[in-house]
């Protein structure tokens, strides 16, 4: 919105700059600080005596002989079995994303091409499903899953996450499919293609941007999930986020706080890198539902 006629006063410009810098500081500093602190020992990052130790690395020097230490990382990844948690996260994420996209593209394509009334109602029901707090669904799963003895294993969690993810994926892909002109697949149908062939060979090739966006959101849901993974997986199969929570410890059991700090950094870094790379897609996905209507 560069107004050709609009000249801004310098006062307003300065104010604007200060505001943005302040906001960015609030938004980013906690992450920078955690990253910095993850290379210190606990007595420095959570100092009882002086918060400045976190910067001067007073205890880190005494305990390890250097200003920075990677002890927290090595311990969390080996002793804390964070490698196992990240392996589980990778398995869950890969399967959730691929299955979600497969089901979602098929369903959303049908919804976008159907002119029947039920397509509208399905979208409404999906919206209601989207609003369900995940924990209420989990309270519905637990008992039957115990009875069927499928609790605690990765496949169950993957299927549950796929299902929970469907309403959002459907809405997102639906709005993307709507932007692909109908004439494209109609001409293919006239030429004798079946619906599936038109979908597979005509529509999907032009849908990649939408599919990437939907994939990113499925990935973020699976990667970030706490409610489902914490309650539906056993200790052995825990993914990263519930693992981080287990490092925090409870009142009875002292956790290892520095493990949690390094695990938070390890879990967040790949996500940030991914978003940096796909920033455009993330933003188009968030706005697809809102702006395009």
């Amino acid at each position, binding site marked *: *919105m560069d107004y050709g*006629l*609009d000249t801004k006063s310098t006062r307003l410009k300065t104010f*604007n700059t200060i505001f*943005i810098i302040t*906001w960015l500081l609030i*938004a980013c500093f*906690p*992450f920078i600080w*955690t990253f910095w602190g993850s290379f210190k020992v606990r007595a420095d990052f959570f100092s009882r005596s*002086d*918060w400045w130790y*976190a910067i001067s690395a007073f205890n880190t020097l005494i305990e390890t002989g250097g200003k920075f230490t990677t002890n927290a990382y090595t311990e969390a990844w080996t002793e804390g079995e964070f490698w196992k948690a990240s392996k589980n996260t990778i398995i869950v994420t890969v399967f959730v994303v691929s299955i979600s996209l*497969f089901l979602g593209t098929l*369903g959303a394509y*049908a919804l976008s091409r*159907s*002119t*029947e009334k039920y397509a*509208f109602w399905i979208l*409404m029901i999906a919206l209601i*499903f*989207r*609003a*369900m*707090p*995940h*924990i*209420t*669904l989990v*309270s*519905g799963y*637990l*008992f039957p899953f*115990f*009875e069927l003895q499928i609790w605690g294993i990765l496949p169950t969690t993957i299927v549950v996450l*796929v*299902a*929970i993810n*469907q309403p959002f994926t*459907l809405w997102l892909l639906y709005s993307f499919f709507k932007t692909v002109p109908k004439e494209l697949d*109609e001409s293919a149908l*006239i030429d004798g293609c079946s*619906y599936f062939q038109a979908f597979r060979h005509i529509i999907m090739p032009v849908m990649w941007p939408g599919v990437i966006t939907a994939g990113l959101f499925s990935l973020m849901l699976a*990667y*970030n999930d*706490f409610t489902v993974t914490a*309650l539906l997986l056993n200790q052995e199969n825990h993914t990263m*986020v519930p693992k981080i929570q287990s490092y*925090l410890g409870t009142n009875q059991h002292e956790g290892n706080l520095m493990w949690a700090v390094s695990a*938070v950094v390890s*879990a967040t870094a790949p996500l*940030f890198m991914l978003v*940096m790379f796909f*920033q455009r897609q993330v*933003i188009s996905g*968030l*706005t697809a539902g*809102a*702006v395009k209507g």
Partner: protein
Amino acid sequence: MGIIFPHLIKILMPNKTFFWFFLPTGLAMILFIGLPIISTGIQSFYAQHDQVVKEVKKCDPFGCTVSIVVDNEETTKIRNAKPLGKFNAFGTYTDRNHLAVDEIKKFWNETESFGAFVDQVTNLPFYKALIFTLTYCLFVTPNVLLLGFIIALSLNAVARKIRGPLIFGTILPMIVTPLVGSLVLFWMIDSQGIIGANIQNLMNDPYLSLKSSKTLTWITIIIYGIWHHSPFAFVVFYAALQTVPQEPIEAAIIDGASRLQRIKHIVLPHIYPVVTFVALISLMDNFRVFEPIIGFSAEGSAQSLSWLIYDNLVNEEVILFGSAAATSMMTIIGIAILLAPVLIRTWKEFKTAR
């Protein structure tokens, strides 16, 4: 006709084709969203079995004593025979941990002033959680809209070249999971963290800490909520701002409208539909708040409805399925009340469109 003017024929997707395309996703949603809601509903009418007790007579030279002990064998047998528990009808809904009908009646009769009555009621677990959840929604949602809008306006005035990195920095709080986001803040705000320690120094009160005060905890969680959700509002508003038409704005500038007037009379009306969308999504998300309570270890002074369910489900002795399910059903009803205006509006639009 169709061959000469292919654009004139309207191809309708046959119901059968629609069915096969939609079957996989529909099945997934029915099995893992629809059925669990029904399952929750059924479970909410059952309660876990009481332990079976038996009298054990113990005799020694000084006489006999009768003691009551838990019959583990019998208890397990009953639990295995009827794993769902005993039928409890609406018993769980009305008990002390949920709607607490009896307690409220008692408080009503016993307390002298209305204030004391409200005090008593808001100490009951369900009402306490409900009040926290609503307070959180009430404070977070409008502030998210406001802050998101201001950031969008402000970033929109920055030179295009440097916007990319600025947007990346802005959306960071949103892409991390709430648990991690709240932990990262908690480690700074805690009495041993950088901000907490400095506030203690500033206020000259070495015992000032987040955990010591209920109000402080609530404020922190609300601030966290605004921090976490504002980027979402920002992104949507920012995208909407790109679509605001230029001509009316230029005309307004020529007519001498101030910046504020232009925002009020041109920009806001244009993005109004998007504002409702953001408000709705953010309301839905805020209503399910629960991870920050774990992240900030604030269980002591702040409990939300979702947290109550979580707490029942991770109960160490025996999982309280019935209790969790009853709270879940009431949460779903809450969501339905929140969504009702939107659904009714959409339905009306749909009817007039026909």
